């Protein structure tokens, strides 16, 4: 059913990236994609997985009714001991199947509709504009990660959950420690415990009153009537915070870096920041950087037909959206960033019932950023070569800092 690699040994995921092109997916993926639809890959603990790398196959698998995301099931694959630890056996909606998943997702979904999040656009535009003013008055070089990319999602989440912006640094530190693939499991559990204690406190404070923020409403409408346990509420809030921080921040940073390496794209956006071009460019950036590079694990609960072969029940799967998004059969010259390409079908937010809850919010943030940043800084350039920067091995792919100047 699957193929052994030529040398007779099995590849171990994750594969190394190419230091010369650190934003692009690991080069080994293109070889696997060219040779066969299904590849045998093993994980750190010896778990044998079937890896999918072709666009149609990854999409079909994620939409299949015969796959589970329930991380408590025996045989469910984890990328590292750290990843196993950060869940602590207590699943959030990304690691639950229907009907539990649907029940919890629908409690949150109304706050993330396209209409609701688009109402945040003036707030986000002002936030972006203020940060750009700061950059301008300080002068380059600055660190685009710390001084621009991270503060945006931090402020947006703080607004949605009505948390003080001054706590953003605390969250960012704990989220990054919690998400790391290389961190010590004890420290990951501590980072989780710190955020949980903070959230427990907030829940207590909001158990009375009639405030309209998301946490107050979840307390009133879900916790008090018993639709959601206190532990589930803490985990759900933890998920909203972790999912919203690093994903958007790293897409801003890696997207900017990628555009700057293709000077004409940056210039084009600077000179012509109309909504249609910005929307198209943002989809291409999301495709190109595919930062959620590890949110791709499944377990089959029945046979799944993929690329003319059949994957049996009980098989651990890596449905590699990042590889699918760089499949030349779907996106011509996939390793070039082309802001006029129609990339809307990319799988960077996943596919199937677990597709990103916050995608509309991410789009609003990214559209605001890539409309304003190139226009304000048409001569922005990298102050350091990309290959000399430190990239992050985490649930989300990213860079520690991105020095830019103008």
């Amino acid at each position: 059913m699957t193929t052994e690699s030529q040398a007779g040994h099995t590849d171990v995921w994750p594969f190394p990236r190419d230091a010369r092109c650190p934003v692009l997916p690991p080069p080994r993926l293109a070889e696997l994609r060219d040779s066969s639809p299904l590849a045998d890959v093993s994980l750190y603990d010896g778990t044998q997985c079937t890896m999918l790398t072709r666009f149609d196959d990854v999409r079909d698998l994620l939409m299949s009714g015969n796959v589970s995301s329930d991380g408590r099931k025996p045989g469910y694959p984890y990328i590292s001991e750290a990843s196993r630890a950060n869940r602590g056996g207590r699943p959030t909606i990304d690691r639950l199947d229907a009907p539990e998943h649907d029940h919890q997702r629908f409690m949150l979904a109304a706050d993330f509709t396209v209409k609701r999040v688009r109402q945040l656009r003036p707030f986000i535009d002002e936030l972006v504009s203020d940060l750009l003013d700061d950059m301008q008055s300080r002068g380059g070089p600055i660190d685009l990660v710390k001084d621009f990319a991270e503060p945006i999602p931090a402020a947006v989440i703080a607004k949605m959950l009505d948390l003080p912006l001054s706590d953003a640094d605390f969250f960012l530190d704990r989220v990054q420690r919690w998400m790391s693939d290389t961190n010590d499991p004890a420290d990951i559990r501590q980072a989780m415990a710190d955020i949980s204690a903070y959230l427990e406190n907030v829940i207590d404070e909001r158990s009375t009153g009639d405030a309209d923020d998301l946490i107050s409403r979840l307390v009133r409408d879900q916790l008090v009537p018993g639709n959601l346990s206190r532990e589930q509420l803490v985990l759900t809030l933890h998920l909203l915070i972790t999912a919203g921080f690093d994903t958007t921040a790293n897409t801003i940073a890696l997207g900017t870096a990628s555009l700057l390496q293709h000077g004409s794209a940056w210039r084009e956006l600077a000179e012509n920041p109309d909504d249609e071009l910005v929307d198209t460019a943002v989809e291409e950036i999301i495709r190109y950087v595919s930062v959620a590079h590890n949110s791709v694990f499944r377990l089959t609960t029945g046979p799944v037909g993929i690329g003319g072969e059949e994957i049996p029940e009980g098989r651990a799967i890596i449905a590699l959206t990042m590889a699918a998004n760089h499949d030349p059969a779907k996106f011509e010259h996939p390793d070039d960033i082309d802001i006029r390409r129609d990339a809307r079908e990319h799988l960077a937010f996943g596919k199937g019932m677990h597709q990103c809850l916050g995608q509309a919010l991410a789009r609003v943030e990214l559209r605001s950023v890539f409309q304003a940043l190139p226009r304000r800084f048409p001569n922005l350039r990298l102050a350091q070569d990309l290959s000399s920067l430190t990239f992050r091995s985490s649930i989300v792919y990213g860079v520690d800092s991105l020095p830019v100047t103008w």
Partner: protein
Amino acid sequence: MTGAAAGRLSIVPGRCIGAGNCVDVAESHFDQSDEDATVILLDDTVEQADLQRIRRAVYACPVAAILLQE
């Protein structure tokens, strides 16, 4: 062909998860419930001029909850 219906839309009951891609791509035809974000079909008739956009919305749905009969 101008103005002639080129397709008809319907929603598979109970399948939508409220991801909102259809609204992002084609708000002329789709909205989301204020209660649980699930899809509301605003117009089931697709005219020729809208067909391309509606096809993209159908394709963007992560759970194939939108059916387009052309």
